[in-house]
């Protein structure tokens, strides 16, 4: 069974097609990264898969459940870290995570386990608004882990973070993968995608233009790394236009 499966997914805003026939298959327990320039359709894809935006055409399944029919169940079994998530700024870290625990019907003991897993126990009484960017993302991931999700969606999880904080977050993502959680991630950082992902997909103008294992893509294009592969692919499609 695939964790996520879309067939010819289309989403339109007015006359503009943000997604124009996206078909992806994300196996269970893998890290899947969606790459692409600004406005390519990465966040729109995440929001359709999170049952936030209603798609106009195509078939979408998450954990074998249909969108929009089974959205209630999907929301219970998935976790999300939105892009530049800023939380309840005047609540403490613990209060923020406990709030989501109540929403998902999770226990306080599990909140403690999550804080231990993400290594944020020392921040538990600090107000969310007083945290650094890296700490906020860690808390965001902790909130996404509430309710024992089978899939976690991370929308640009390391955007604007310093290199150390970014590396720190990579380790957390690797740990989550080891625990069998499927991770669907969007990112602008090719190095990150190359290190973390089992599968990457490059999207541009709402269309998937390349998909596969990062090493296979690099080998196929005979380039040094994923960044060069990305530039080659995006450059080619830009020239075609």
């Amino acid at each position, binding site marked *: 069974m695939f964790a996520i499966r879309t067939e010819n997914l289309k989403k339109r805003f007015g006359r503009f097609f943000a997604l124009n026939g996206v078909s992806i298959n994300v196996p269970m327990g893998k890290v899947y990264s969606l790459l692409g320039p600004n406005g390519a359709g990465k966040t729109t894809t995440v929001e359709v898969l999170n049952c*936030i935006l209603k798609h106009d055409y195509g078939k979408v399944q998450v954990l074998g459940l249909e969108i929009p029919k089974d959205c209630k169940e999907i929301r219970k079994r998935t976790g999300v870290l939105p892009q530049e*998530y800023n939380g309840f700024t005047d609540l403490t870290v613990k209060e923020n995570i406990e709030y989501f625990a109540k929403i998902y019907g999770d226990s306080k003991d599990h909140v403690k386990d999550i804080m231990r897993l993400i290594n944020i126990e020392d921040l538990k009484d600090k107000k969310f608004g007083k945290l650094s960017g890296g700490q906020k993302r860690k808390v965001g991931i902790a909130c996404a882990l509430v309710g024992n999700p089978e899939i976690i969606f991370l929308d640009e999880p390391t955007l604007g973070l310093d290199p150390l904080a970014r590396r720190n977050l990579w380790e957390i993502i690797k740990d989550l993968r080891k625990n069998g959680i499927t991770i669907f991630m969007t990112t602008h950082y090719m190095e990150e995608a190359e290190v973390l992902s089992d599968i990457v997909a490059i999207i541009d103008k709402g269309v998937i233009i390349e998909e596969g294992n990062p090493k296979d893509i690099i080998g196929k294009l005979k380039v040094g790394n994923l960044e060069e592969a990305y530039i080659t692919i995006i450059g080619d499609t830009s020239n075609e236009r």
Partner: protein
Amino acid sequence: MRDSLRRIVATLVAITKDNLSNRITLFFIIFFPIILTLVFALVGYSFINSTIPTVYVINSAEREGNKLINYINASGLVNLIEVNNISQIPIGQTYVIIPNGYPKDRVEIYYSNDIIGEKVFMLLKYIINSYNSNNIVNGETISTSLNPISSLIIGAIGIAVSANALFGITGVTIGYERDKVLLRLASSPLRNIEYLIAIVLYQLILATISVLVILFSSYIMGLKMTISPIFIIPFLEGLFFFGGLGGIIVGLTPRGKIFLANVVSNALFFPLMFFSNAVIPSSALPYPFSIIINFNPISIINDAFRYLILYNNINDGLLYSFEILPFSIIFIALGAKLVKLREV
């Protein structure tokens, strides 16, 4: 049902805790009502002091009484309004009773137990005694702690309830949209209706605190007001009317331009506040301003509050409440329909 209740309570607690420690929110729910109360009281006192006082008169002595009324009117020092019975006299206003047996029996003057009431009493006593050199005046203070300033303070309550309801919903939604909290909630099991109920209950808390602050400030200034339990009706109507309006504004504002909701709320609220009967009675303004003021929802809510708190007149209070009830229901229903966490 139990899950739903748990999510509503958790969201209400989170929103309340998150915002009640915010200085801007504290300003709006505590300091803004105190400032409103002080400003309204000062405006009221200076207004009363700078104009000819209005005095109500009940004349039971007919011809002799009319002569006295003409004499007082001719002095130009007070504005006399003749009424048939005490129920027609607004609360806290000075009034004169000319008894059937006048001039044998003494003229009774009832005045509020404050500096303004005493000034008007002294003035009336002087005028009446100058008409008849025998001391024919008997003074009596009105057995209420209310005076015309109380009416203005009620205006502050109307404004505080409306402002908290409108800006409570737009302010919180704008902040949470900016911080991506709404996006996070949209992908959680929290339902639209649960979020809306939590946010309306949050407004209820804000407005209740503001009303208590105003009543406490008034009490310190010597104005003791007792609130009928029926007060809850126009109070909730005001909350639903302006909360619903806030929901409509937020719901119609495009995603990504949500800050515009605040601009629209300000553009709507401030004219409504200034063109209401909170400070100026509609009868004091010429047509068509008086009509605009009378149809202003803040004025209608204020009228309901005034009848229920000042005059203890439940019938008229409820009458004003029913005037705004359909709009409150329509607005809160529309707001609930338009405030959506998600499309799906």
